[in-house]
């Protein structure tokens, strides 16, 4: 394991242990609902489902169709805010 990936692993571990990752997850979810991202994506889901057929839709289908679009649709403001929080956390806990 390179020093880099060691460091990343250590950071992730700390994020989880301190509960920060869960808090960030909740924050992100709330922001995405607020800005209408979820509704947009849900509408896209409806199209995909109607296209593939209600009976035959699988999780893989949905993941393949939804994830790229979902990533692209996240508003910049939300991204900025989350990044800010993450960087603050990293700065506060710089010595791992």
């Amino acid at each position, binding site marked *: 394991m390179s020093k880099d990936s060691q460091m990343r692993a*250590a950071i992730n571990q700390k994020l989880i242990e301190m509960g920060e990752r869960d808090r960030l997850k909740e924050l*992100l979810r709330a922001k995405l609902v607020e800005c209408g991202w979820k509704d947009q994506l849900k509408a896209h889901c*409806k199209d995909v489902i109607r296209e593939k057929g*209600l009976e035959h*839709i699988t999780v893989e289908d949905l*993941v393949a169709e939804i994830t790229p679009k*979902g990533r692209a649709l996240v508003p910049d403001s939300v991204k900025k805010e989350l990044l800010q929080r*993450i960087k603050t956390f990293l700065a506060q806990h710089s010595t791992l």
Partner: protein
Amino acid sequence: MKMDEISMSSLDNSKLEGVAQDILSDLVEDACLGLCFEVHRAVKQGYFFLEDTDQETMRDFEIVDQPGVDVFGQVYNQWKNKECVCPNCSRSIAASRFAPHLEKCLGMGRNSSRIANRRIVTGNNTNNKSESDQEDNDDVNDNDWSYGAEKKAKKRKSDKNPNSPRRSKSFKHKSGMMGPRRRMDNQESPRMLMKDEAFPQ
């Protein structure tokens, strides 16, 4: 190099940015996956297109607001006034009182052996050949006491019947299945716990 010696301050900003971006990317992916699972479950459970129902069908499922009927339009007290015939004593009993009556009548409920034993005691007071014969079965089931001790203990127990919540209902006495009316004199307040009898001296 030990893990705890890795210090972030030794990282330059771009690396920091990179790490933060990766973390964000993971979080966004989590959110997307979460949505996928949610949608998939909704599809499989059949409630995904619920809000798209047409007006006609929506009206079928509107909340019902009539008296005597619940929100689904079902009558909810239709069994209140029905009467059933008890298979044991062949009496006609109201439906809502049927289960407790059956308990007493068949001698199978939680309290039925208590009542029966009480009746032995009072039976003994007034008449020697009491119903102890037919109550023998209940006594055998009563593991805690021997039959002899039971008679003595039961005498006192007759006074502390208020422990059983059923004692409070007066209309039970009317049915004639319970002990005689004079039991009402013993109890001032049905729910009163007789503390001195909880610890028999």
